[in-house]
């Protein structure tokens, strides 16, 4: 008896009761499809979080001067406010002092309304910085030009504006060369930023970027210290080194130890890794839930195989009487259960594929190839595992008992 002959017999077994086979497969189908879709949702949401973090900039370290906001710069036992001065910025820019830093952009920011001939945009984020800020935070200029270094040194009242500001103030009109009111000062629009979308909390398109000198002059009135530094590292691998270089420069300048720095330092690389571990936990959780449904599907296969063995007791007896060995009967019923599970699994992969093309709760699922291999592998394993007991029961029947069975 070749395995093929036996396989054909098993196939006949599966097709002889189509409705029942189909319902059994449905259990496995749902399990496999659930694994694929839920893992895809997990992978998709992880990719989305990743993209959101990347939108913050590329290989950046953000130094936030909490004391600057009069906020909670509680360090050690006493509250102290540090300062980030232009001298610090110059030192961080120096490749000798901070070799792993690509650029540093001092930031002063405020939130205010912008208006243009009657139209207004509420709560635009006004950021005063240098040209490097735009590249470090992944802003691209769609029209016009990015603020320049000479405009920074010349304290010129020019600005680049985000898409939300454009829409709110100008509608469809061309904003380039127009003068808008920011607070009580007027700034000329020299560039329009390409859209970045929302990070969930803040609208990254409701921004106005101007030379920090002009913002200090006109809006914040501050000239001694910056509220924030945006440092771009040379690569993600050296980001941690760049962070410690920045920290030691600031610690020296503020005359405190690195541990006592009154700044909050956000390293993008650590943000990414935190997000990754969170989303992988999430994915594992989803996969586990889906795995349970696959298990239930497997039990369905076993149930049907047991029914099938009971129903076909007589047939098993005949087969044994005409020379089928125990191993052949075992194989026949194992093939049958694996076939049920595998066909269900393949259908599940198809459903999973289709299902993963729909946005689920705002997340675009991304199919993880491993989940397909895993789900199919598990469904075969389910067939073998849950088929073995019924198959073995069939194979162990004594032919005389099986023949007597009515």
């Amino acid at each position: 008896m070749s395995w093929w002959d036996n396989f054909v017999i098993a196939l006949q077994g599966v097709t002889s009761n189509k409705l029942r086979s189909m319902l059994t497969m449905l259990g496995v189908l749902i399990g496999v499809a659930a694994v694929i879709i839920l893992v895809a949702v997990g992978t998709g949401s992880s990719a989305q979080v990743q993209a959101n973090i990347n939108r913050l900039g590329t290989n950046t370290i953000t130094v936030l001067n909490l004391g600057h906001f009069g906020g909670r710069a509680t360090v050690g036992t006493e509250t102290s406010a540090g300062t980030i001065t232009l001298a610090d910025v110059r030192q961080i820019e120096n490749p000798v002092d901070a070799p792993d830093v690509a650029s540093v952009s001092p930031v002063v920011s405020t939130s205010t309304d912008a208006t243009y001939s009657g139209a207004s945009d509420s709560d635009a984020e006004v950021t005063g910085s240098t040209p490097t800020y735009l590249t470090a935070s992944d802003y691209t200029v769609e029209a016009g030009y990015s603020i320049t270094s000479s405009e920074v040194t010349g304290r010129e009242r020019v600005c680049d504006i985000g898409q939300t500001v454009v829409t709110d103030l100008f509608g469809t009109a061309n904003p380039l060369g127009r003068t808008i009111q920011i607070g009580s000062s007027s700034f000329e629009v020299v560039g329009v930023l390409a859209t970045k979308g929302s990070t969930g909390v803040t609208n990254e398109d409701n921004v106005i970027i101007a030379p920090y000198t002009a913002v200090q002059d006109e809006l914040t009135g501050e000239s001694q210290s910056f509220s924030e530094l945006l440092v771009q590292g040379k690569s993600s691998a050296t980001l941690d080194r760049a962070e410690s270089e920045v920290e030691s420069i600031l610690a020296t300048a503020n005359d405190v130890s690195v541990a006592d720095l009154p700044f909050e330092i956000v390293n993008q690389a650590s943000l990414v890794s935190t997000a990754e571990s969170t989303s992988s936990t999430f994915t594992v959780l989803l996969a586990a839930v889906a795995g349970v449904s696959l298990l239930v599907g497997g039990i369905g296969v076993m149930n049907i195989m047991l029914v099938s063995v009971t129903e076909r007791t007589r047939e098993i007896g005949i087969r044994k009487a005409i020379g089928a060995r125990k191993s052949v009967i075992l194989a026949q019923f194992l093939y049958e259960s694996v076939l049920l599970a595998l066909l269900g699994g393949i259908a599940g992969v198809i459903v999973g594929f289709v299902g993963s093309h729909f946005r689920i709760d705002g997340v675009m699922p991304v199919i993880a190839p491993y989940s397909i291999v895993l789900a199919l592998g598990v469904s075969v394993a389910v067939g073998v595992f849950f088929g073995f007991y019924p198959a073995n029961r069939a194979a162990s029947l004594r032919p005389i008992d099986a023949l007597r069975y009515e």
Partner: protein
Amino acid sequence: MTGSATDELPARRRPIIEIKQVSKIYAMGEAEVHALRGVSLTIERGDFVAIMGASGSGKSTMMHILGCLDVPTKGWYWLDGVDVRGLDEVTLSIVRSRKIGFVFQAYNLIPRTTALANVELPLAYAGVRPKERRRRAVEALENVGLADHLGYFPNQMSGGQQQRVAVARAIVTNPALILADEPTGNLDTAAAEDVMHIFSLLNAAGRTVVLITHEADLAEFAKRVLRLRDGEIVSDVRSVPVEGLPPRLHAEHTIRTASMAS
């Protein structure tokens, strides 16, 4: 062979079946049922034997033991010179597939499987190649007059036709022994005669046939008739010598062969 009587046998032609002092005891709760009480029997190659008895006489148990479907509680059994006592399940299934062709009362064809596939099955289990398998299965079906029913499913055939498929399945492996258990029990008289005639033809062609029945009519087809009662052989009558033609074949040979071919 561990001390088997086969070695002790004189160098004559081996009988196909030799059982000695075979007993079968079933435990029914507290009570013991003696289905066979020390039966000894020798069946020669080429014989046509009917084993008769009322229900409860032990003839089914006899058939199960002769067919290696069950093992005796006590006693010895040599099938075609092989001591089948103490063989394990795997070896028994090999012995069954090589030496015995079964015909059951309820036909016992595999459902949803064509006549041809049913007849091929024992060959498939014996590992015969598909081409050879097919050739032999077609030949066996021709022998029982069903050459034009190869693709029929069991539920498309009459009882007599199904039983003839079962006979074809029994002979396709060229077994030493054909064991038929009430083969006509579910058939009308004409179909029963057909099937019995096929057994006669097979026997005339040299096959050993053991028929288990409770109908005296059918026993008339056999060369030797054994009667069982309460697990013991109470009579053993031979009407035709082992080498002779089956008793009912002479008279009907020509007529039946003609009708079967149609």
